[in-house]
Structures are given as structure tokens and as C-alpha cells.
């Protein structure tokens, strides 16, 4: 699984990154977490609110910092949909 955190490096993006890593750990999932700070790339995902969470090139959430629990749900839902 490949995970991208979209955001310009503000507080919210850092929190999201940390929580995503925590969520992955709790789920015992293995994934590369990558930060995308370039606005052109961020826009190419079509989001208008940062931070954004992208799993395998699919935007699963934007404009909020979900709890670790919620991120776990999103990750599991994504895995289930494959």
C-alpha cells in the first residue's frame, strides 16, 4: 500500500502524518507514507482543502484531521474495496 499526505507542511498535515503512522502501526499494516508538498501535485488530486489523505492514488479524505480510529477505518475500508 502506498500512502500520501497532501499538504503544505502546516500543523494539520504533520498531525495527520503522525496519526496515519500510528494507525498503520496499530493495524500492523505495512505501507510507505509519503508527503506531497508541491501545490501543483496537490491540486492534481482535485482537493481544495488540506490536508488530504491519499491511499494508492485515491483520495480518501480531505480538509480534516481525523482521529487515529477514523484513519484505521478508512484504511481498512480501502483494503476491503480492493
Amino acid at each position, binding site marked *: 500500500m502506498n500512502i500520501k499526505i497532501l*499538504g503544505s507542511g*502546516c500543523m494539520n498535515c504533520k498531525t495527520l502524518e503522525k496519526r496515519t503512522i500510528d494507525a498503520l502501526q496499530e493495524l500492523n499494516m505495512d505501507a510507505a507514507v509519503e508527503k506531497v508538498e508541491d*501545490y501543483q501535485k496537490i*491540486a*492534481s488530486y482535485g482537493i*481544495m482543502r*488540506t490536508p488530504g489523505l491519499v491511499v494508492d492514488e485515491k483520495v480518501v479524505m*480531505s*480538509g480534516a484531521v481525523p482521529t487515529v480510529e477514523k484513519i484505521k477505518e478508512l484504511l481498512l475500508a480501502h483494503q476491503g474495496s480492493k
Partner: protein
Amino acid sequence: MKKWFEQYPLGTIAFLLPLWVLLYVSLQPIADSIVLVTGLSPGTHLTEAFRFFVFEVPKVLLLLTLIVFAVGIIRSYFSPERTRKILGGKKLFVGNVLASLLGVVTPFCSCSAIPLFLGFVESGIPLGVTFSFLIAAPMINEVALVLLFGLFGWKTALLYMSTGLIIAMVSGYIIGILKLERFVEPWVYEVKAGHLDLQEEKLLFKQRISSGVDAVNEIVSKVWIYIVIGIAVGAGIHGYVPENFMASLMGKSAWWSVPIAVLIGVPMYSNAAGIIPIVQALLEKGASLGTVLAFMMAVIGLSLPETIILKKVLKLPLIFAFVGIVAVGIIIVGYIFNFVY
């Protein structure tokens, strides 16, 4: 608490709302008894500053909680995606009016200014309309309105909101007719924004209430400390600074006070929570409303960090035009108020 809201949303509100009202109406007696208990003798500078503090802090925090909760629910009905859809294809003027109004209710954080700008421009929303949104969104925010309402009364809050809206509409319109598109960084127009198929899930009312609770948690935990500090400084001014101290400096007769207030305000970046209580105390000491209003708008509406962020997508002439037009608008508003009151 969040659990209650999730399980019994309406019941929890029905229980907390009367409690809120009860607390709110008993603020004065509570403050008075706290002053009494401390044994401070009435009438001294210290006592009056202290009384001001123990009354204003809980009052503003109570108001803030309620309003942020309500605004959190209202905002759950709006999203930048939906706003973009509404604004798409709108001409100047109508677009400016709509964009300014939507700027107030659409969830916005200045850290998202760029993705939002790109999203708007990419979908063909005119530059001037986009600016109306970007001016209104930070200038008219719930924290500022709560503080204005709590410390100055509803008239000032309403004045701030309506003049703020007018500035956003008119400034955006002017930017639109000046045709400044050539001062947008060229790469902006090359952005091929992907189309998000995040289906906008229909939220249950329960979930909207829950976003209200989230908003309270997020905003109140962030700004309470500034409110306390701001009111403490305000209390100090209230108790110690002599009456009419500010009259010569920020009074009506000092014509230069409005532009100076704006010049000082623009580079200052304080959140509304810290600045408004201080400004309120200054008003009490003889500063005039127009000057004070202009100062607040400049601090809240035009901030240096946001302008620096915008530098990534705008060339300098456009940034100067944007700051200049809004600043002139604020100065005019300041003079009008000084003249009317």
C-alpha cells in the same frame, strides 16, 4: 461528553442549553461574589480590573462555545467543492456578492488558501470573484464576531460583518475589472486538477451535531488562551489607564489615526481572540469606533503570513493591488464610522 452527543444528540442539547442560559444570566452575580470573597475593596483600580476579568472571561468563553457549535453545524452544509459549483459560471458582481457571502459560511483555513485558489481558478471562476471569497473568509470569522458581540454589543458586530462583506464584494469587483489575470503565476493556469469522485455523503443531523462538537473542541482549545491573555491586558487597561487617554491618539479629531491604525494593523498578525479585548479597552478610553474598527479589520482581514502564502501563485503587482485595495476599503470604512458616530 462527545459520546453523549453521539448517542443522544437532541437530549444532550436540550440538557446543556438551559444550563448554558442559567450560567450566562448569573455571570454578573458570580463575578461580584468572587470579588467579594477576595476581600478587595471596591472602587480601586485593582478591584475594577479584577472584576472586569472574572466577568468577561467566562462570558466570552460561553458565547464562543455556543456560536462555534452553531457555526460548526451550519458549515457542515457547505464545502469548498459545493461553493465552487455554486460560483461556477457566475459573472462579476453577482459572483462577487455570492462569493463574499459564501466566504463567511464555507469552512476555510488560511493554510488551504492555495489549493482553494487553484481549485477556483481551474474551474473557471473569475479572479475577482475568487478574491471576494478570499477576502471575506478570513475577515468575517466566528471568533471575531463572538468577541465583537460579547464586548461591544450586537450593533458593532453587525456593522463589522456588513462592512466586511461590502469590502470583500467591492474589492473583488475592482480586482475583476482591472483584469489582473496576467499577474497570476502562469503555472496556475496549467494545473490540471483531477476530479475528485469523493461522493458528498449525505450527513445525518446527528453527524452535523457531531461536527459542531468537533468545531468547539478544535477552536476553543486553540483560542481560549489568547482570549484570557487579551482580556487580562484589557482588564489592566480598563482598571489603570486614565479616561480619555486614547482620545488624542486614536480619537475622532485625529484624522490621521485611521490610516495609521491600518498601517500598523496590516503587518500585525494576531488572531481576533487576542486583539479584540485589548481594542475594546482602548475604545473605552476615548479611541473612536471607526479607528478601532479599521485597526481590527486590518489585523484580521489582511495578514502577512497569508499574503506570503499567496506569493506562490500571485506576482507582486497583484499582491500589492490586493492589499492596497482592501486597505483603502478599510480606511474608508474607518472614516465613515468616525463621521457617523
